[in-house]
């Protein structure tokens, strides 16, 4: 097999089977024409050096094959709108089924004990598996359709809603205040303050033992946590005050941005301190002494809470970091980037 045949075969390896033979045949014919042309022009005899020079000029097999199929998609632009639409529908249906299934499953075993943790983990893994399988199947079906359906069929399948320029978002106002978010912040801030200061016992865990109808409520937060209550109150009140000020002003200023950064940083400092304090949870084996629960189950509940509470604090910490980053970016954007 000469160099040109080897080259043509190599190009063919990167081409789809349905057009491979045809393209290979035409490519070989072209290369032979080009060699012949060079022999005529130079008067030299055909040799391997001449073939090497020609093939170098023609380009690597991958590049040549790529010119025939420049955009090789698993799911191309013509199918993509329909693909995302189907994905959204299936995703919504699966999410609803997952929530219903999880609620029913947990309702059967109650919200306590090892069984609760087992069912929770089992259901989560089950639905993640189902979601991955569903996604894989949808991708597979669309990848097949991409390669088999003619354009005319695909045009009829795609959603073709008329586009309205009125739906374009308004011009970006970097100092605009989102009043709805602020009002919600004030309401939830006040609600949180009232609950923490006047009804601290409601921060706890409802537990149902032995699948009976009796539910028990065990407060979770310890005295160590409540020692920080004055600081939490100050930060919450500062946040509420700032939100009320912003609602009134209806625009961000440098003072309010710096104020927000300070309040959020203080909140972050409290969260970090709470994370570093041991015994922040008021649960102890004694908490179960008057309850109908086995010692093993009590330990399991404590273990779960030992993970859940720091986990919640870590999520709060991440949200606070994001908020600080957003505030800092807003400050920089208005004062430096836009000038």
């Amino acid at each position, binding site marked *: 097999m000469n160099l040109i045949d080897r080259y043509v075969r190599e190009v063919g390896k990167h081409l789809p089977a349905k*057009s491979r033979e045809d393209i290979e045949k*035409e490519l*070989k*014919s*072209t290369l032979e*024409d*080009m060699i012949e042309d060079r022999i005529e022009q130079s008067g030299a005899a055909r040799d391997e050096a001449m073939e090497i020079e020609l093939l170098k000029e023609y380009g690597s097999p991958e590049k040549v094959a790529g010119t025939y199929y420049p955009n090789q998609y698993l799911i191309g632009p013509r199918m993509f709108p329909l693909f995302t639409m189907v994905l959204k529908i299936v995703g919504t249906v699966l999410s609803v089924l997952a929530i219903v299934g999880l609620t029913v499953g947990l309702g059967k075993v109650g919200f306590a004990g090892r069984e609760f943790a087992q069912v929770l983990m089992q259901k989560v893994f089950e639905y993640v598996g189902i979601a991955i399988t569903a996604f894989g199947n949808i991708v597979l079906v669309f990848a097949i359709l991409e390669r088999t359906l003619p354009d005319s069929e695909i045009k009829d399948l795609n959603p073709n809603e008329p586009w309205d320029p009125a739906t374009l978002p308004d011009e970006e106002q970097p100092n605009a205040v989102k009043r709805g978010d602020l009002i919600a912040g004030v309401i939830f801030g006040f609600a949180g303050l009232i609950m923490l200061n006047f009804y601290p016992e409601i921060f706890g865990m409802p537990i149902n033992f032995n699948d009976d109808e009796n539910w028990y409520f065990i407060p979770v937060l310890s005295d160590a946590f409540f020692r920080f209550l004055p600081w939490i109150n100050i930060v919450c009140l500062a946040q509420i005050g700032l939100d009320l000020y912003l609602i009134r002003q209806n625009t961000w200023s440098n003072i309010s941005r710096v104020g927000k950064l300070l309040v959020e940083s203080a909140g972050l400092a409290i969260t970090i301190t709470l994370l570093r304090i041991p015994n922040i949870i008021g649960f102890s084996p004694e908490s179960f002494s008057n309850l109908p629960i086995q010692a093993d189950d009590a330990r399991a509940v404590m273990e779960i809470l030992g993970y859940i509470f720091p986990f919640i604090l870590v999520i709060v910490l991440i949200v606070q970091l994001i908020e600080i980053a957003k505030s800092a970016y807003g400050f920089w954007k208005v004062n430096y980037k836009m000038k």
Partner: protein
Amino acid sequence: MANSESLDNVVLELRRGVIVLAVLSQLSGEQYGYSLLKLLSDQGLEVDQGTLYPLLRRLEAQGLLESVWKLEEARPRRYYVISAEGRKLLPKLKKEWADIVSVMKKMLA
């Protein structure tokens, strides 16, 4: 260097737009790929093989060209010729091109 590359890219884009018209205009008679390449080159339009061959296949898939394999000089060659549909389209493309040239002449004057 960067300017030279930018110029090359812009020239390539400009040429890409006219290759379809050039190819259709030269295929009133049968031509195989390499002979067409030389025909275009002889008239001053240099086209890369990597552009021409895929374009010929695309135009054939669109029904604007027809092709047939013929055995010549001991090797097969694929001959292309403009189809009936391509012949109908060509005058419209020519008019479009004339309009573009006229507009651009005014713009660049």
